């Protein structure tokens, strides 16, 4: 995710040449997943990391520029966790990414030091990887972390004996201790000075070495016993055959409800602020076309971006907490059987869950799925998950068409929509795995890390990164789409002579902006589509709103605002919703009913109205076929679902 969609092929090659010589040496931090790599990375770099630029690598790799003792300036990169570099693998998986970064760094001019983090309590497992790294003749430093945890278990590591046995320098640290960062920096500087890469094929056996250098020195401390008992007890309940899934569902429902209940007021506050700024701009710049472009086109788009920052933040924090605590792997254990029925595995669970914040990072996160077909399936169904961008539109629909509902009713409907998204995603993957992506799946093997208290600093840091990436990637798309939309809804269509629908605006003077829109290209397209949209209960105005939100679904609200002549729809949706309620058809019946609302919800639930998602799928699948497929199938389902909902609800609801 470090660069835009253009970072492939020739462009990537060109960049390698451009940055070739005169670069800082690279320290690559590697290790098994859950080995305590992130904690150590934060301790060493002081959390000043930025997203590094690694040509051809489409996932975020954190990089920080640090000074080592002796005035040595290096860049330190936190590579994705992996188990081995040897087995044949898909280049898009974590192992493949790590290997390509290491190989490239080893072959170019800049110096490379590989620092491997090993969890002291799983020494033998870590040493298997050490042997692979040593065989590749990397300049290598092994940092054994969690030394304190090992000692609390009544065992001690002889670091000198270990270094001698594996012929690689070893540093033993406690990852969360204050002095750790400085100690690791010093050891790294020493390795760069040594400047003699170790070569040869290691002959030692990881398990034997681990037995040899770890000694039982005392009794198990109470803290260690408590820790182990805690994990066992927590697993006893959290993985309980009956209570486990129930607790899991409750946690998910709680997260989704929190997003609605907490984000909603924050979002409307941000909306009001943006609306006020927009009003200022209009006053300052007058009524011209330029002022309209700035306040409707650009600021409207920016407002949309900011408006769902709170949701992104809440969901990212929730995901980080679940992940860092070790619960996410338990969730995968619980749902593996279910996902298996649908042709996925517990590994797909994490990206699918992340998709509820935003599909873009979730599509990148599918790289933890090792099976290529399963990974593709996960990517293809991700757009069906209820991402936070759908929420403003859901909110508009709910206030407009269900004005009498209580906050509890709306929260329940929200949670229901979330589960509807999940359900449809599962059905879609079931169908896909039997058609487009059929074939055998690699079986689930998932590490279950010990429960850990999440470090607030790491969580805050990750959340900040998620928010910034969202601003950068999604924000620019929304701004662009918003600007294009403004043009579509402003430039008059040739031969446009459509009269104003007097009834709609009966209660107030028609703003100039609305008059312009009535005659625009967008309105013309909306009218042209009416024959196929009327079975869904959508008139040309909703069509124009849907066209406006093709690039980014959250633009629906501001488009409808313009259509209904509300200058600042986003500042307070209630005048918009009341105008939409009051809108009449030419024959005098109300233009929209609760049926329209339900049909709209069904449409938004399925349609992939997000160009950023399409671009991300294009980048991850390296084809145009799959993004086109996603657009086609989600819109087809959306149309059928809206049609079905509108027609069937007609049997029960008048209007």
């Amino acid at each position, binding site marked *: 995710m470090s660069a835009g969609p253009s970072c492939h092929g020739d462009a990537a090659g060109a960049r390698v040449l451009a940055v070739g010589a005169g670069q800082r040496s690279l320290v690559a931090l590697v290790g098994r997943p859950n080995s305590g790599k992130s904690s150590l990375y934060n301790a060493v770099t002081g959390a000043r990391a930025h997203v590094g630029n690694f040509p051809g690598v489409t996932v975020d790799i954190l990089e920080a520029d640090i000074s080592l003792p002796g005035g040595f300036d290096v860049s330190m990169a936190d590579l994705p966790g992996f*188990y*081995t570099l*040897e*087995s*044949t*693998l898909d280049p898009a998986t974590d192992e493949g990414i790590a290997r390509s970064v290491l190989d490239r760094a080893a072959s170019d001019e800049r110096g490379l030091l590989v620092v491997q983090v090993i*969890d002291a*309590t*799983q*020494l*033998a*497992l870590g040493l*298997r*990887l050490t042997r692979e790294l040593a065989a590749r003749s990397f300049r290598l430093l092994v940092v054994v972390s969690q030394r304190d945890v090992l000692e609390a*278990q*009544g*065992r001690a590591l002889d670091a000198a004996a270990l270094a001698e046995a594996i012929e690689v320098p070893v540093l033993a640290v406690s990852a969360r201790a204050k002095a750790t960062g400085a100690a690791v920096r010093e050891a790294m500087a020493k390795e760069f000075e040594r400047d003699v890469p170790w070569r040869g094929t290691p002959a030692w056996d990881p*398990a034997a070495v*681990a037995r040899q250098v770890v000694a*039982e020195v005392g009794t*198990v401390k109470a803290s260690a016993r408590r820790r*182990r008992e805690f994990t*066992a007890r927590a*697993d*006893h309940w959290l*993985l309980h*055959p009956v209570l486990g899934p129930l607790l899991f569902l409750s946690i998910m429902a709680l997260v989704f409800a929190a997003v609605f209940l907490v984000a909603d007021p924050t979002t409307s506050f941000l909306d009001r602020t943006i609306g006020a700024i927009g009003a200022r701009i209009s006053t300052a710049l007058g009524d011209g076309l330029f002022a309209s472009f700035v306040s409707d086109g650009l600021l409207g788009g920016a407002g949309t971006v900011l408006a769902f920052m709170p949701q992104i933040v809440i969901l990212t924090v929730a995901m980080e907490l679940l992940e860092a605590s070790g619960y996410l*792997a338990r969730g*995968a*254990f*619980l749902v*593996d*059987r279910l996902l*298996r029925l649908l042709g996925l*595995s*517990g590994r797909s669970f994490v990206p699918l869950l992340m998709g509820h914040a935003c599909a873009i990072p979730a599509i990148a996160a599918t790289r933890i799925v*090792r099976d290529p077909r399963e990974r593709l399936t996960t990517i293809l169904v991700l757009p069906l998950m209820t991402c936070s961008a759908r929420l403003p539109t859901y909110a508009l629909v709910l206030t407009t068409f269900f004005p009498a509902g209580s906050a509890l009713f709306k929260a329940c409907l929200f949670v229901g929509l979330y589960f509807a998204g999940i359900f449809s995603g599962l059905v879609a993957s079931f169908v896909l795995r039997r058609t487009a992506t059929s074939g055998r799946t*690699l*079986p*689930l*093997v*998932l*590490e*279950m*890390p*010990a429960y850990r208290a999440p470090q607030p600093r790491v969580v805050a840091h990750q959340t900040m990164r998620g928010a910034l990436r969202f601003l950068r990637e999604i924000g620019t798309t929304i701004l662009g789409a918003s600007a294009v939309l403004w043009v579509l809804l402003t430039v008059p269509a040739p031969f446009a002579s459509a009269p104003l629908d007097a009834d709609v605006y009966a209660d107030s003077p028609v703003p100039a902006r609305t008059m312009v829109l009535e005659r625009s290209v967008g309105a013309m397209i909306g009218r042209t589509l009416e024959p196929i949209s009327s079975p869904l209960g959508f008139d040309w105005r909703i069509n124009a709103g849907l066209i406006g939100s093709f690039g980014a679904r959250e633009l629906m609200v501001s488009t409808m605002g313009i259509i209904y002549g509300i200058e600042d729809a986003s500042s307070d949706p209630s005048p918009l919703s009341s105008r939409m309620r009051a809108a009449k058809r030419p024959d005098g019946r109300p233009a929209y009913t609760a049926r329209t609302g339900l049909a709209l919800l069904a449409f938004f639930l399925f349609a992939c109205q997000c160009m950023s998602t399409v671009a991300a799928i294009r980048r991850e699948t390296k084809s145009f076929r799959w993004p086109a497929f996603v657009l086609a199938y989600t819109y087809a389902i959306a149309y059928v679902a809206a049609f079905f909902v509108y027609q069937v609800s007609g049997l029960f609801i008048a209007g």
Partner: protein
Amino acid sequence: MMPVPLLMLGETQVGVTVRIIALDLDGDFVEWFRAVGIHEGERVTVLRRALFGGPIHVRTGSGGEFALNRELARSIRVAPLAGPAESAPGADEETGA
């Protein structure tokens, strides 16, 4: 020497510790699997099984805990250790999982 009774990890009872004898799996995958920490000679304790033939939760002698697909576990040949009493000193055994 007594013949080792044929046993698969997938059928091993909860709470029982066994030793891995062989992995009856495809070449590519088996290498990765060994690197993850499930390899011949490793001691494995079954901690729990998920419902309806879901994954099993195991702890290995190296201190790692893993969720393994049930079918996969049926391809892992294991031999029983003498009994619960034989657990190595300091091993992370847990009671009543």
